């Protein structure tokens, strides 16, 4: 019994190894074709091809014989995965859910779940993100191990689960892969959990990180900036200045840091010091919000330093700059309303450059994209822009499909015209050939059966040659003839007949094995020809069938497809307009908000310039008054001296 079990196990193991080897060598070319497109980030073609392959697979009578059978789980999973990449997370969520219950490796499943959770998190759907991230179990790919932990903590923060976030982030805070991010998020989690003191300490710690990584340095700057402004709110400008000074001058937060640094000096009434960072800032790109604000700050500081003339000149320059920027913004809004922004962003040649969106400003009649920097970086705008590109791609595809179906209809008509008169003639010829073929095949089967039976019950007479049969027939006739003859020499004749009969029978019996082997060989040869005949027959039947099918039964499906394409085309066109309109509206709203801010600054500048001129004039008048007074005093003094000198 035990031995039998062991034998069974060995058999099962060897069978599974064989199966595994067999599978690995048999790739499914059509599935891998889908992967070829996916690896090039062409997810539309990847999905549609794998979808078509899956559709064919499920339509098969014996799908287990198809090579896709061995990759079915992978294919089903890949569809969901690629839909996720194609930003169809509503559908991909369902697909991935289905696949999570299927037989796919943990690492693959978890990688997809991570990406899905990230999408939900970016789209500000914290509950969905939490639900997805909690489904991650088992082995996680090494490359996302810490990113996953960080994402999990961020999702906890979004769901106000601060203690969970704190505990998780405390564990990974010092991990180099997420350095900076974990530390900064830990500070946010502390503040969210009403542990403000701890939060500030943590921000301070983040602000002192040392790293060569630009992204980490940006997080470090951000922590210092947040802390600096927090201290400004708490009226601790001297301390705030320390944090603003930690921020790099070439980093993304440098302008806000320079602005904050100046305000910290002003708050501490150190106007001379404030002029230094603000002068640096005032020379930067005017589209930057901090630069626009400092154009007011700098003359304010000079004013406090009693340099009213300089302040008045700077206020005048600020007014001019604001006026220019408002004109620029108005032109940008006008260009967007005229559709030039959308026209520019779909230009293929620009997309090849990484900074293509920013470079749009070099094109004539396009909006000033520097003003849209913040908006461009926002997830909503990015997603809307990607949707716009996808819709543009779909619209182009649908336009190209329009022509396909018309050519298919033409092809079908031409085929029908060609095949219809040929069919009756061909059918008649086929009928004759078919009956002849069936007869011959029946004969072959009969011979085959007979030979098979002869293996069990030998029948040498069946293998007699033609001349032997003829001779035997002659002998039988002679035997019959001389059977009733009573002549004297009959005995001699009968003896000869018997001898002849015996010789033939001897030959038949002794050569039986040799003849049987030869007959078997001949049958095998015949089988080869029969197989070829059957192949030709099947090929013909299939060709006839495909010829018939090449023009029959397509009308409905083509009509339905045409309708589907038409309806989808209309829908895509409308969505394209709506998505474009949304992008335009986002951009216009952003530009209007910036315009409004500049207008506010402009009003302040107008008041300040008047005030500064007043003060400058007043100072000038005071100076002149002082000078006049001094002159009068001097003159009086001189007169007195002269009078003393001319005394008699």
């Amino acid at each position, binding site marked *: 019994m035990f031995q039998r079990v062991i034998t069974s196990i060995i058999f099962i193991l060897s069978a599974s190894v064989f199966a595994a080897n067999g599978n690995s060598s048999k790739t499914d070319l059509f599935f891998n074709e889908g992967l070829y497109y996916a690896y090039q980030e062409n997810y539309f073609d990847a*999905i549609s091809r794998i979808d078509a392959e899956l559709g064919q697979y499920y339509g098969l009578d014996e799908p287990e014989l198809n090579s896709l059978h061995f990759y079915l789980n992978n294919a089903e999973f890949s569809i969901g995965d690629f839909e996720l990449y194609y*930003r169809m997370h509503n559908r991909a969520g369902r697909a991935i859910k289905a696949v999570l219950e299927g037989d796919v490796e943990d690492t693959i499943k978890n990688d997809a779940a991570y990406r899905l959770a990230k999408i939900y998190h970016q789209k500000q759907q914290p509950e969905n993100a939490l639900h997805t991230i909690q489904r991650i179990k088992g082995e996680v790919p090494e490359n996302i191990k810490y990113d996953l932990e960080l994402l999990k903590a961020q999702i906890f923060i979004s769901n106000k689960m601060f203690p969970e976030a704190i505990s998780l982030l405390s564990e990974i805070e010092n991990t180099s892969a997420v350095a900076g991010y974990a530390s900064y998020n830990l500070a946010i989690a502390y503040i969210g959990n009403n542990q403000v003191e701890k939060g500030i300490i943590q921000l301070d710690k983040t602000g002192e990180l040392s790293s060569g990584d630009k992204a980490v340095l940006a997080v470090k700057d951000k922590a210092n900036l947040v802390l600096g402004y927090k201290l400004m709110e708490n009226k601790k400008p001297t301390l705030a200045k320390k944090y603003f000074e930690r921020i790099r001058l070439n980093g993304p937060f440098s302008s806000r840091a320079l602005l904050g640094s100046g305000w910290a000096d002003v708050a501490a009434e150190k106007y001379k010091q404030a002029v230094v960072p603000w002068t640096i800032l005032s020379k930067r790109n005017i589209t930057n919000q901090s630069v626009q604000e400092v154009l007011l700050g700098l003359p304010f500081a000079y004013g406090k330093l009693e340099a009213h003339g300089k302040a008045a000149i700077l206020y005048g320059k600020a007014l001019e700059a604001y006026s220019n920027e408002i004109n620029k913004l108005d032109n940008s809004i006008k260009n967007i309303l005229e559709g030039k922004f959308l026209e520019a962003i779909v230009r293929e040649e620009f997309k090849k450059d990484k900074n293509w969106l920013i470079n749009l400003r070099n094109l004539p009649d396009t909006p000033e994209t520097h003003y849209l920097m913040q908006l461009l970086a926002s997830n909503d705008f990015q997603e809307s822009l990607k949707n716009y590109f996808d819709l543009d791609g779909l619209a182009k595809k649908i336009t190209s499909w329009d022509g396909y179906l018309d050519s298919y209809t033409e092809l079908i008509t031409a085929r029908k015209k060609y095949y219809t008169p040929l069919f009756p003639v061909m059918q008649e010829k086929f009928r004759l050939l078919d009956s002849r073929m069936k007869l011959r095949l029946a004969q072959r089967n009969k011979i085959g059966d007979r030979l098979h039976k002869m293996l069990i019950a030998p029948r040498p007479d069946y293998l007699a040659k033609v001349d032997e049969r003829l001779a035997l027939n002659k002998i039988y006739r002679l035997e019959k003839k001389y059977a009733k003859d009573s002549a004297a020499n009959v005995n001699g004749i009968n003896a000869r007949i018997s001898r002849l009969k015996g010789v033939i029978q001897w030959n038949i019996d002794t050569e039986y094995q040799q003849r049987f082997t030869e007959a078997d060989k001949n049958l095998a040869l015949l089988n080869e020809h029969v197989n070829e005949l059957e192949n030709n027959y*099947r090929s013909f039947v299939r060709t006839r069938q495909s010829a018939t099918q090449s023009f029959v039964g397509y009308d409905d499906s083509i009509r339905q497809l045409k309708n589907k394409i038409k309806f989808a085309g209309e829908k*895509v066109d409308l*969505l394209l307009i709506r998505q474009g309109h949304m992008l335009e*509206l986002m951009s216009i709203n952003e530009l209007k908000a910036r315009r409004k801010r500049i207008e506010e600054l402009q009003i302040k500048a107008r008041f300040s310039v008047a005030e500064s001129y007043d003060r400058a004039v007043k100072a000038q008048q005071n100076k002149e008054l002082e000078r006049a007074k001094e002159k009068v005093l001097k003159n009086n003094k001189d007169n007195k001296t002269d009078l003393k000198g001319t005394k008699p």
Partner: protein
Amino acid sequence: MIASFDRERLIGFIAILLIWIRIMSKFRAVIAVIIMWIPLSCMSEQLSREQIKGLDEQVQEIKKDVLAISAELNLLEEKLLYPSNTQVSIFISIVKNSHYNPDAVQIKVDNKKVAYHIYSFKEVDALRRGGVQRIYTGNIRSGGHKLEISLIGKADGESKSTKKSSFTINKGIGPKLVEVSLGANGSLIEIKER
């Protein structure tokens, strides 16, 4: 006051529209167009998250529809243009762990040039990662056919070279799939028939 008046007008407009929809149920496409326009016309200057999300969902839906049409078209094209009894498809792949970089490939079937492709960096990368490119799909009669492959490319650290190979493929009753593997040790071009 003005806002509430606008809202009432909008509700009234939708009610009339719904009645009209019932009457005009035959013209579904037109109705769909109008329904899709409603939110656009009502879109205020400020965009809400719901509006962005709603549009995003509609985009996802249309992607799903267009993908389904594309898959259907693929099947129809294959059935109509390349019936299984005459269908032949030639695929290009790169042998696993090979250092070969193809620049261009040309395929001839029975001395007739049927396909030519120049590879981009992205395409070579996709092939190296296990992707398979369907370079040609066409129709041939059953029986033996001559397949000629000309390849220009180079292995890492080697100079560019041209290689030509000829094979005979046998087309049976079913669809013929030929996988051309590039970068195999020794022969550089290998074919697998299915």
